[in-house]
């Protein structure tokens, strides 16, 4: 698919020019611009000065800095210094914001049911985990599609937030269109339970503001030091928005057989919900790259067997609305960065159908030669040192693997080095080996 990529070029050029950043030094400014350009070149399939290295870290910041996951979840200063230390010492070309840090107070004030986190069902030195359930019932699609905000407020939130349970007694806010209908929806918040829920909401609002301030001040600090943030916003595949958090895997699977049309309609609805979310985040952050992790559309082997979907189901339920979302993002100059979990070797030809030089595909498992052959001249490939290697092997084995990746995927540009997924349990010496080796061996001549 050919397309005018001026918008992508324009947006990435703006990102590389680092508008509004007051750098700590001339060196920091140069380093920032060099790093951003390296990544922008790779995205646009040009040959950068060397292969960029952008590790996805999440809780690795805590592991590297010898602090617990609990600490980075609850203590702003520990969170900040752990992430800062890791970035400054390992010097990646861009860093991933410590998105999951400082969220403990939020989880607590909501009494969040869809997660377990350190100190709350998870040991202190491991990250949070998602508790999948059927938070939306099979017969609730109509309510979701007709009024997503109302559905979230009165149905979803009371189910996943113990402290917002009273919201299920609310009437729809859409009733508040005139002075004489304005009061009834709020009446239920006047009860004892309602007041408690409002208190919890207020507390959550304060914690949310602290969280946002933490992220933006961290971003500012790192930018000033010369490190660009890789992501400007986040979205999901529309199918995953439903299958991960609302219906759960089994619920969504049953819907594929029992009510396929309504499931597809809900996916369509989520295209604009997710688009809005990502575009507003990018406006605030100034970033261009949108993180989109893919979950429930994968195969489990290179020949396409055994995964969450057949190729036919992928083409029917998963790809059309994901592609639509990506194209809309690309239209406004944003760069979708798919984190493709599972094995997509069997889906390469399908996912090639996007404008050239506008996306990053970060593979977890893929036949690297096939990926380069099919996508190499079309999409920037990111990854994929197997996380198994990062967790269990030696730095030398990691370097050997990186060499193969650079030789195959790095040829001619269009490649960003990273592990196959978040490195939170990786050995620090292996992460360092991946970074240092890429800087040394990945130089383009």
């Amino acid at each position, binding site marked *: 698919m050919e397309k005018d990529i001026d918008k992508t070029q324009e947006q990435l050029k703006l990102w590389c020019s680092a508008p509004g950043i007051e750098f700590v030094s001339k060196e920091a400014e140069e380093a920032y611009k060099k790093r951003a350009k390296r990544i922008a070149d790779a995205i646009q399939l040009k040959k950068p000065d060397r292969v960029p290295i952008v590790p996805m870290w999440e809780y690795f910041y805590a592991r590297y800095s010898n602090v617990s996951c609990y600490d980075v979840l609850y203590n702003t200063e520990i969170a900040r210094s752990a992430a800062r230390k890791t970035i400054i010492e390992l010097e990646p070309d861009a860093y991933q914001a410590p998105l999951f840090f400082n969220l403990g107070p939020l989880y607590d004030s909501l009494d969040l049911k869809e997660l377990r986190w350190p100190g709350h069902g998870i040991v202190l030195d491991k990250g949070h985990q998602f508790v999948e359930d059927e938070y939306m019932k099979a017969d609730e699609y109509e309510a979701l599609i007709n009024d997503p905000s109302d559905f979230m407020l009165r149905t979803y939130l009371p189910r996943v937030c113990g402290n917002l349970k009273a919201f299920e007694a609310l009437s729809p806010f859409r009733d508040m269109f005139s002075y004489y209908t304005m009061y009834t929806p709020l009446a239920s918040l006047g009860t004892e339970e309602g007041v408690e829920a409002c208190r919890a909401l207020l507390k959550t609002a304060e914690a949310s503001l602290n969280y946002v301030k933490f992220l933006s001040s961290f971003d500012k600090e790192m930018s000033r030091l010369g490190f660009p943030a890789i992501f400007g916003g986040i979205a999901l595949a529309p199918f995953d928005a439903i299958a991960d958090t609302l219906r759960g895997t089994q619920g969504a699977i049953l819907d594929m057989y029992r009510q396929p049309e309504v499931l597809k309609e809900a996916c369509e609805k989520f295209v604009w919900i997710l688009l809005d979310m990502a575009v507003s985040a990018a406006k605030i952050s100034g970033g261009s790259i949108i993180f989109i992790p893919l979950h429930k559309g994968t*195969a489990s082997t290179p020949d396409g067997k*055994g995964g*969450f979907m*057949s190729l036919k189901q992928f083409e029917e339920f998963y790809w059309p609305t994901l592609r639509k979302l990506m194209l809309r993002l690309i239209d406004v100059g944003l760069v979708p960065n798919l984190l493709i979990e599972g094995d997509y070797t069997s889906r390469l030809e399908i996912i090639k159908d996007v404008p050239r030089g506008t996306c990053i595909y970060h593979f977890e498992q893929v036949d690297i030669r096939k990926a380069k052959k099919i996508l190499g001249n079309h999409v920037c490939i990111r990854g994929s040192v197997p996380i198994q290697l990062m967790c*269990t092997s030696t730095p030398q084995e990691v370097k050997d693997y990186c060499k193969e990746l650079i030789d195959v995927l790095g040829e001619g540009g269009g490649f960003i080095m990273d592990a196959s997924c978040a490195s939170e349990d990786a050995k620090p010496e292996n992460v360092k080996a991946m970074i240092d080796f890429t800087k040394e061996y990945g130089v383009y001549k």
Partner: protein
Amino acid sequence: MPGNLVSALTDLKEKEVLEIVQHRLNIGDNPISILDDARCAMETIGNRFASGEYFIPDLVYSGVILSEISDIVKPKLTGEAEIKRLGKVVFGTVAGDIHDIGKDIVVFMLDVNAFEVYDLGVDVPVQKFIEKIKESNAPIVGLSGFLTLAFDAMKETVEAIKAAGLRDKVKIMIGGGQIDEEVRKYTGADAYGRDAMAAVELAKGWLGLNRNPRQRAR
């Protein structure tokens, strides 16, 4: 006149399956023969999954239809339907990991393939595995895990089984999103399986049962 239960279930025709089951009960058919047919269909479904024709959604959907059949048929059963079990398997998601989607599918496929599965759930402490192995005398242990933290938890579980003097009494299989040969070596398990049918094959192999007669002939 409703059609054949085995082919309707194999092809995942939910409505048709339920009609056939109801019809057969109405005309006084033996509930055990209905369950036998369902089991026969599940075997074909498992084979289709193993050959790449079917996917996880097909397995999950067939599981849901099967439990609907069982809900209709069970009240009509006089006495327990005796299924000849092939062998015992102790199964669970290892300590620290609370993921259950993969584990549940494997447990389900082992169960419909006539294994007696002790499903210990998720986030299972090593001690619980050991107690259940001792109590059940199961010759097979399955460790599931989705996150990278499961690598160490699996390793610790295998080591604890060894320390309890049970290592030579059990075969241990591991599986889950990130599990490969590299991780198998790291944990000291006997084998890893890519998916639910691989687990069934491993378990049958360890018990000296071969699924495919042609393979046996070779």
